[in-house]
């Protein structure tokens, strides 16, 4: 059955959202324009840069390459879903502490790819971190600080910072 719009249900950052979406709209369009979650960025719009990375059922994907209707029934986590009660997550804190953020445009995607890595394994080698972030481009070239941030989050440094507050 073909249709121009379709009813979809998404669990976004833990909250169930029932929407009527145009079938040609991407998951990224719907997150940004209909749900107001503008943390995920549109940059290349062809799956090269990773700025739109979100987790769908736990896997990092390019939200610009997924139609919203394809994600029907899925659980989606965006950068807005990481913090709790207005406090940043340990990983987000580690990005701040390491100076991982320059212009900031790539950072939500970077953090989501790192989040997917840390969900799979608590410890990661520098090579594993670079591999995990290899689908995310940073035009500022701030890769060393970004990788340092993820390494710090792995080793628990960010966690200590959080506990000190």
């Amino acid at each position, binding site marked *: *059955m*073909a*249709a*121009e719009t*379709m009813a979809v249900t998404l669990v976004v950052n833990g909250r169930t959202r029932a929407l009527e979406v145009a*079938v*040609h709209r*991407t998951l990224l369009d719907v997150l940004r324009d209909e749900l107001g979650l503008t943390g995920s960025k549109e940059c290349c*719009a*062809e*799956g*090269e840069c*990773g700025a739109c*990375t979100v987790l769908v059922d736990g*896997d*990092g*994907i*390019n939200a610009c*390459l*997924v*139609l919203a*209707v*394809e994600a029907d029934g899925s659980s989606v986590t965006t950068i807005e879903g990481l913090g709790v009660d207005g406090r940043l997550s340990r990983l987000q804190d580690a990005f701040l502490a390491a100076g991982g953020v320059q212009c900031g445009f790539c950072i939500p995607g970077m953090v989501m*790819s790192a989040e*997917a890595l840390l969900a799979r394994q608590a410890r990661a080698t520098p090579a594993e971190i670079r*591999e*995990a972030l*290899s*689908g*995310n481009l940073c035009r500022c070239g701030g890769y060393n600080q970004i990788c340092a941030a993820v390494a710090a989050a792995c080793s628990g440094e960010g966690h200590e910072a959080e506990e000190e507050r």
Partner: protein
Amino acid sequence: MFAYARPEGLSETFALLDAEPEARLLAGGTDLLVGVRKGNVISPLLIDLKRVAELASGISEVDGALRIGANTVLTEVINDRRVQETYPALVAAARVVGSIQIRNRATLVGNLCNASPAADTAPPLLVFGAILELAGPDSRRRVSFADFVTGPGRTLLERGELVTAVELPLPADPVGSAFQRMTRRRGVDLATVNLACAVTSGGVTRFAFGAVGPRAIVVADGTGMLADSKTDPVEVDALIRRMTAEATPISNVRASREYRQAMLLVLSRRALESARERLAEARRGG
């Protein structure tokens, strides 16, 4: 703009295809949706196959083969223990397709149906003798992957037909295999040259070369010379040159014809060495 349909079974899928011959099939969508957005693909209907029961993702052992369902994404192929043990060249190839985000979404079958001359998964499937299961409204057939791709973006698929699974024959005796490729930068790039090598316990060595012709090709050496690690390297090079002579690379933005030919020899040597070592390890029971 396009319409979207989400069938749950093959018969419904075939009915949709019959009613709209210009429809395109959507699996991972990592190529199709880029094409649609850029206007290179214009289709009135996208048929999403992800909920078609007969195409379910999964890797299972069936009748002496490992069967990979059409909706199986590359990440699942990479993480499967049986694929890792028996077809390391396929794991190595799948690991370099796109990025992690792409591999979480893109399917192995989609990569094959896309029929890019540079598809990284094509050379390993050729050296392993992969079979594709095809289904149409009134037909079921199995075709060798070596015959499936007929040219850039072209396959044997008839109108209304689709691929339901890939089968990799499980070898009775150990096979050593390896994948090599050359890219302009270290990661997340299309191959300038890619190839796979498999050496059987019986001494047959197969090479498949990609990105050096309109489609990947497979060639075999049955003399046992290449499989034998004691063969003089000069003779090995001569044998490899004879096999790579069937490649017909072109010059394009990624490399010149001459450079591709030169690199075929270098990468073939490396793949052969690694495939021989893996075979020796497997035979030692390692």
